[in-house]
């Protein structure tokens, strides 16, 4: 897991109650048991904590943590 993936994983665990052992770069949000509102909650957390605004539909339940990290990176995160 790279640094950005690690940061995102920490946020999933600390803010959204995801079980730490479940999170790998290949985990999808469906596997992590986030529902569609959970995806929006995570977008808002990324916006607040990393300063990157993703589009409302950027994350889907089959998006993985690694794909999310790439989306955040493409928007200019330096984490």
């Amino acid at each position: 897991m790279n640094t950005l993936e690690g940061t995102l994983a920490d946020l999933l665990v600390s803010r959204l109650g995801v079980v730490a052992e479940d999170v790998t770069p290949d985990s999808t949000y469906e596997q992590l048991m986030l529902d569609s509102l959970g995806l929006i909650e995570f977008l808002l957390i990324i916006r607040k904590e990393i300063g990157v605004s993703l589009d409302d539909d950027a994350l889907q339940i089959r998006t993985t943590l690694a794909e999310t990290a790439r989306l955040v990176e493409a928007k200019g995160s330096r984490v």
Partner: protein
Amino acid sequence: MTARAAVLSGLGGWVPPRLVTNDQLAEKLDTTDEWIRVRTGIRQRFVVDAGMATSDMAVEAGRRALRSAGESRVDLVVLATSTPDHPCPATAPEVASRLGLGEVPAFDIAAVCSGFVYALAISVAMIECGSADTALVIGADSFSTILNPRDRTTRAIFGDGAGAVVLRAGEAEERGAFLGFDLGSDGSQADLITVPAGGSEQRSMGLVAPEDDYYFAMQGRPVFRNAVVRMSESARKVAERVGWSVGEIDRVIAHQANVRILHAVALELGIPVERLVVNLDRVANTVAASIPLALVDGVVSGHLQPDDHVMLCGFGGGLTWGAAGLTFPSLSVEPLPGLPLPTRPPLPAALPVHAAAR
């Protein structure tokens, strides 16, 4: 000389007697109690019976607010609603008349779920400028009457009700004085929360629209994000105007849209969820009534105390949003008929509901 201000002096609310639980909804729609609770925090809602209109609820809430304030007359009646008794005329004059308030100025404000904050801002401004010495401000909606009977999402989210406050002229240093407002709108996103047909746009076409277009429709994800961002930004602006740090806000009475929106607002503001006043578990989203009904709940449960720094914030269709700050006064408020008090703590704290439910 101290500045003239508008002071909160009375508060009341009312919900119709017909209770609909999540299980009752699940008997007719493809949904479950758990699905509704996990996604919204809502356990039940009250809805109007046949023949009951928004004005009926507004009169009941208005009467209780006047009683709370010890007033029998006011100079102004403003009703926030998106479900008026008729498309024309406004409902406020009838409400004023039925409350025995005589020939006072009375009008409606339509800003959907932000309506109460908008109505407050106008009424406060009219008192501050000397156009009125007292005002009755009501938020009332019978949204169950515009919901698509086949839509499991909106039927779970919304309930009917009315809440009202009485304002009087006073001084800015008094407890209860409204200290600052922020209002805003973004019409470029008007289609996120809408009843597409039934207005002049569709009627001017001279055609009948598809049946579903006559019902309320909402796009959940962008509405969720906008609600969180707009309410927290608006609350921050008001806190700055009033001279409070965000940490000095004791209680947030945000529009009761969804408990997960409320928790996300707390997270965005960086305040503990215990500072949220929450009643949507028992009354659902009552649109323009939501903030005054939450105020009633806060006072009756003791969650809101005199001298608390209170931030009201609303968000709704338009898009519209707004916030208002005040130091809470001491009020005598009647409990809502038929409504249980909140369980304490009001809802699972710290984590969003979906995680807590696992």
